């Protein structure tokens, strides 16, 4: 892997030499994909953002150890995943009351609430909102490695080899994770996929 093939690696080499502005370009480019990845694993948007901030700081601190052996994004997502797993482990050791914990009084409410900035009465939008919630629910119920594999596959159109590196498993295991994750999603979303509502919403 050369810097010609991966412009981000060239930026990271500049960071290694002390160029802070090059790092700003990288943060700007990858902030949304990293937060997306963390948000689907951690239940809270603020926590996901804080962890993403920590990920970028960690990347900067580790710049002196960076070698152009793979794409920069592979290295970045590996750090992001490791920190995310550490956070999950830390939480399991020191469990705290979650704001998302189901309250018996309103247990029929969804885990995540989305800010509705559009007209709440429009039936298509209500349906779209419900679909979005169902998709998020289905994703959050997947095992961590399946969800991460699917998100990486979707987020950056990463190759199976790159995802396998990030997940530290074999190529065949990665393909299997993605396949099983997609099958589970299809099963859970089948009523919506087959009813045609998704297609109708897309057209409108």
């Amino acid at each position, binding site marked *: 892997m050369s810097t010609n093939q991966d412009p981000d690696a060239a930026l990271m080499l500049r960071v290694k030499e*002390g160029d*802070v502005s090059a*790092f*700003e370009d990288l*943060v*700007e480019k990858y*902030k*949304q994909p990293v*937060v*997306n990845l*963390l*948000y*689907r694993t951690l239940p809270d*948007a603020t926590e*996901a*953002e804080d962890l*993403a*901030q920590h990920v*970028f*700081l*960690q990347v*900067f*601190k*580790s710049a*002196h*150890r960076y070698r152009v052996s793979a794409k920069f994004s592979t290295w970045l997502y590996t*750090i992001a995943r*490791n*920190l995310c*797993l*550490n956070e999950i*482990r830390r939480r399991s050791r020191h469990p705290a009351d979650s704001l998302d914990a189901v309250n018996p009084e309103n247990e029929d409410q969804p885990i995540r609430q*989305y800010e509705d900035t559009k007209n709440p009465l429009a039936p298509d939008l209500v349906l779209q909102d419900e*679909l*979005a919630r169902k*998709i998020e629910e289905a994703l959050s119920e997947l095992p961590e490695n399946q969800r991460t594999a*699917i998100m990486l596959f*979707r987020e950056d159109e990463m190759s199976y080899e790159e995802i396998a590196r990030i997940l*530290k498993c074999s190529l065949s295991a990665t393909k299997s994770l993605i396949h099983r994750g*997609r099958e589970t*999603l*299809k099963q859970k*979303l*089948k009523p919506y*996929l*087959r009813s045609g509502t*998704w*297609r109708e919403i*897309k057209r409108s």
Partner: protein
Amino acid sequence: MRSPDNNEMHKANSRGKRKPSENAPHPQPLSDGREAEADWDDEIQLNQILERLPNAPLSSNFTSRVMSQVRNEALARSRNPWRANWNSFVDSFRSREWTQRFALSAAVVLAAFVCFIQYQASGRKEVAQSVVAVSSVADLPSLDVLVNFDAIKRLPKKSGEVDVELLAALK
């Protein structure tokens, strides 16, 4: 997209052998065709759904907050490189997986144990060497000197006074 049954058939074909159950005629070829078509449609729909997943909420000053931390880090590193390197080491240790952390910790404990054993062994060696050195210089007295040892030990101790009677008897 193949249905699960079709997948099994495909696998069996690629193996070159079929189990008896796989040799059985396909029960519902027509409905399977429709099912496969529906599966394929689901695949396409799922791809589109995943592509259209909404982005996670992100504050507008995210980059500036990260860059502020990064500049502080760079400044701290230029002021105190040793401390910055140590912090960097601690952070990198924390960001590793638990297996790597365990291996690293085990290596440190093992190294400390080996150092302790070496230290103890070198201590014992030093004591043995000093005993050898002393024993070669100060030879033990002969047994004849100790003939009256018990009698002399039982004698009353009178400090400062000379036992003239004893002296005379000895002469």
